[in-house]
């Protein structure tokens, strides 16, 4: 069995996960990455997506996060999510609402930079929706 390390998933409202895990898959802005124990220190931004956690006990949990940060150290990994939900509790209406908001943001962005950012966020959200909905 692979070496376990400490993983914490926190949203501003609460601490969702804090336990020993085998690996975590994080949707980084520059692509998905799998974090194992003894990972080199990395700090990365996160795009909206699914975080997969394999606990030391062997269970696999999936969480949906909407942007945030991951702070990875050899000794552990902390994920600061803007908002996080367990995949089972995800509400389709909520995602639809977020997409709607992102669309509005993109529509009334003032300059090109803001628009590009909003559109990128929107496309990430729609990908996420596509990934979740058939499930």
């Amino acid at each position, binding site marked *: 069995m692979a070496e376990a390390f400490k993983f914490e998933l926190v949203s501003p*409202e609460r601490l969702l996960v804090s336990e020993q895990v085998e690996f975590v898959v994080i949707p980084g802005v520059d692509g998905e990455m799998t974090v194992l124990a003894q990972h080199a220190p990395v700090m990365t931004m996160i795009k909206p997506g699914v975080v997969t956690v394999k606990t030391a006990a062997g269970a696999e949990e999936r969480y949906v996060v909407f942007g945030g940060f991951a702070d990875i150290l050899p000794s552990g990994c902390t994920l600061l999510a803007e908002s996080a939900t367990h995949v089972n509790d995800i509400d389709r209406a909520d995602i639809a609402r977020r997409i709607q908001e992102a669309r509005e943001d993109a529509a009334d962005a003032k300059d090109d930079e803001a628009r590009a950012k909003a559109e990128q966020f929107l496309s990430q959200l729609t990908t996420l929706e596509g990934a979740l909905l058939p499930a």
Partner: protein
Amino acid sequence: MASLKDLRNRIASVKATQKITKAMQMVAAAKLRRAQEAAEAARPYSERMGAVLANITQAIGDGGDAPALMRGTGKDDVHLLIVCTAERGLCGGFNSQIARLAREHIRRLLSDGKQVKIICVGKKGYDILRRDYGSLVLERVDLREVKTLGFGNADAIARKVINLFNQDGFDVCTLFYSQFKSVISQIPTAQQIIPAAQASAAADTGNGAGGAVYEYEPEPGEILSDLIPRNIAVQIFRALLENAAGEMGAKMSAMDNATRNAGDMINKLSITYNRQRQAQITKELIEIISGAEAL
């Protein structure tokens, strides 16, 4: 002297009031527990955020590429005060304490010739500050409809503040709220959130993770420019949560006092009532006896 009937009515009305204050106290106690839990649940995030921020600031060093939100504008002319108070009264000195601190601050800034702008979060603070500094209030944020405070509420306020900053609306931003110490003690606090440099410098001594050489994805500057606005939102969120817990604590003890006062009042009134009734009985007896003796 009030008649017996008046006294009876008075006692009945004080009893009704006591029932209300008692109910309010119990409601406040229940809400306090929830607010406290929420405040505690939010703590890990803001702690980690502080640690991450400290790390990244170290990595960037004092180089010029720190975002403006962190460095400030280099000036100190226009101050923005975010005054967070409760939406409702009946919580003792809670709101007026925060307002008093803010007012002292405003007076000092104005006498130094600075320009002051105010954003009021919560109705009560606005009501108090409106009298003296109504013209300085840019905006008031109403959270009355909000049942449970979410991060979204804080984020909305933070976004407004950051927009204003980007339009050169102010140089320094200070957050006023009440720190929740315990049920009976809330400490009104002023906390500077923009520029954030000093705040994070204090945070980085506390964390042991410092010193590790990080890889950054994307560039540290880019992360930081995303992290700082978020940190502001987190600070505001924390202030709102502390406030919510403090308000309920203050309300609970205020209502506890009110209930006790009503009890004292009922006791006093009942004694007066009994005395008067006894006096009347005695008087009637005297009348009967002296009537009988006269025969």
